[in-house]
């Protein structure tokens, strides 16, 4: 091998090293801000959604995704793209949702996913913060035998696979050995089979059970929610962990909605706050400071979220609240100053 050839060989090896390093970087490490740029350029947010039923997330008769989680997608789209309808809803199943996010098929997962350690440690995913404090419960047929869960005798329970619900039920069986799980791949299959009386109980998050009561086509009074709550289910949006700028956009969109409720700013009365001299209101609405810009957005980001989607309380009440068929009191999801757990760090 002559000197020139040997040097060429060396250079090509070195270039291979470069290629490998770049490829590795490209695959594993996203540039901060990448997701925000993608969403802006595409002009739409790809939001992962799962059919949970009325109030939470479902497709209405016009083919529109509606519900609490669909509204969170719209809030982020309003902040980022400037249009609450600039959302491409990507329907997913429980067993594909995390892979879809990790594989960059969606920008945001906004459905009733429980925030747990196992789902964010070493997975490349990060939960942005609890949006809905829930807990796992049981729905029974109103005309079936009643009483405490323990005293019901041998009882079958419809449950969806690949959920924290399934794992909690397995845990709960140590306390309630009379329960036997009947496992379905999807939540809607579990619901249907419960309605068809293939099992005595249906278990899921209490919000999802409230929704299941409405989905049978029969009177909701045919079903009762049992008092037992067997778990904590803090439900949170989820993003990839390699793009902290995007993580901030999602978590502060959520916090802006809470801050708006604290200040009494709604989609209907927002304009009356544009002359406010409360510095916290002024910063939230982008009337002073540069908080929007530091998020990579513009001054009006939070104004759009509130105007197009509403504050946290409006979104809750519209989809889940006492005046909807779901009829769920705020409870733990009331503001911290009103006895609940909903709290946002200051926009300052």
């Amino acid at each position, binding site marked *: 091998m002559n000197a020139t050839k040997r040097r060429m060989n060396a250079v090509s090896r070195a270039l291979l090293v470069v290629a490998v390093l770049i490829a590795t970087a490209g695959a594993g490490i996203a540039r901060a801000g990448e997701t925000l740029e993608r969403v802006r350029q595409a002009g739409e947010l790809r939001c992962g959604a799962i059919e949970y039923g009325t109030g939470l997330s479902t497709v209405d008769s016009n083919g529109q995704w509606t519900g609490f989680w669909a509204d969170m997608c719209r809030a982020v789209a309003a902040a980022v793209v400037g249009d609450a309808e600039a959302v491409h809803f990507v329907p997913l199943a429980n067993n594909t949702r995390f892979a879809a996010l990790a594989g960059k098929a969606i920008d945001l997962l906004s459905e009733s996913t429980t925030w747990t350690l196992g789902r964010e440690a070493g997975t490349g995913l990060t939960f942005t913060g609890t949006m809905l404090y829930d807990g796992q419960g049981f729905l029974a047929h109103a005309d079936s035998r009643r009483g405490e869960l323990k005293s019901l005798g041998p009882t079958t329970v419809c449950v969806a696979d690949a959920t924290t619900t399934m794992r909690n039920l397995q845990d709960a069986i140590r306390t309630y050995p009379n329960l036997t799980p009947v496992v379905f791949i999807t939540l809607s299959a579990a619901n249907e089979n419960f309605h068809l009386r293939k099992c005595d109980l249906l278990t899921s998050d209490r919000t999802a059970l409230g929704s299941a009561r409405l989905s049978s086509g029969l009177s909701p009074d045919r079903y009762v929610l049992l008092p037992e709550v067997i778990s904590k289910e803090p439900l949170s949006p989820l993003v990839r*962990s390699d793009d*902290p700028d995007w993580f901030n956009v999602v978590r502060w969109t959520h916090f802006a909605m809470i801050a708006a409720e604290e200040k009494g700013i709604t989609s209907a009365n927002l304009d009356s706050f544009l002359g406010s001299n409360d510095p916290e209101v002024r910063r939230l609405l982008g009337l002073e400071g540069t908080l929007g810009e530091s998020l990579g957005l513009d001054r009006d980001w939070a104004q759009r979220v509130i105007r197009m989607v509403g504050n946290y309380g409006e979104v809750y009440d519209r989809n889940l609240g006492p005046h909807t068929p779901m009829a769920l009191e705020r409870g733990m999801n009331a503001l911290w100053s009103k006895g609940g757990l909903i709290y946002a760090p200051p926009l300052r």
Partner: protein
Amino acid sequence: MIHAYRGPLIVATIVAAALIGPDGGEARAGETLDRVRQSGELRCGVSEHGPGLTTEDSTGRWIGFWPDLCRAVAAAAAGDADAVRFVPLAAPTRFAALRDNAIDLLSDSATWTLGREAGTGLLFADTVLYDGQAFLAHADSTARDLKSVGAVRVCVDESSTSMHNVQDLAQSTHPNLTVMPFASLRIKNESFYLRKCDLLTSDRTALASARLTFGADVNRFVILPDIISKEPLSLVVRNNDPDWFNVVRWTHFVLVTAEEKGITAANADTFQASSDPEIRRLLGLEGGFGTALGLDDEWARRAIRAVGNYGELYNRHLGPGTPMGLERGLNELWAKGGLIYAPPIR
């Protein structure tokens, strides 16, 4: 052969480095944990906030709520609660020290705000102490609440969120307040003590602490009932290492979960035979969650043994049985009327 390609390889490496990260800020996920483990110590940024919160005792040991959180993370990550190098910082430089990689963790009564994490390269792990800004007055003055005070001078730390809040107040609803900023906590507190200002303003926890440093009867000072802000105090990390972010936020959540389950520093080793699956996962008896975090199965048990559960930590430094005398309030568990909540270890 080796000599023949070393030159181009160096060039290639430089080119690659330039292409991957122009600012040199791209950390590998897990880098901080590796550094802490290899060096055998956690570099934890702290500053003097007074007794209960953060202070040095007569032997030079950092004690208080915030230093103990450093110890909990060190116990989880480095295997030893004392594997902490406390790095004393001044308030104006603390965020820069973290950004510049001079520390691994900032545990310093820092208020979590949007402006401090958007575009800054930093991330707040989660609120560990819900606080709010209040005012300390001399008990022999006429001040009983903010409404009743006339034209008054207010001493405040110039690089704190307290400064912004009191300025907001002075510029809007309370023009009777004259803001007097200080760079040093000690001089600020002394100035109040020497009556160079009528009120001292800071987080409520910091005022309770300041009251103890004056060497006088604490009853000579009164905390006014007005709370003018939300101050969610949080641990802070860099935002380019999500694995480390997880280690820190879940160490905090472990302490909360331990309180929910009645596991304390003293009894943590007596649950080996527990059949409660949540306890078994928390204590690493099943589930393997420590490994998923890049740690080992004993991580949570070490943290609990080192500093106790969240309630023990609070009560030891800030609680009603201490000179600080602060009720749990918002910092009570969610099931008991407070805001302290942890996602499940599952």
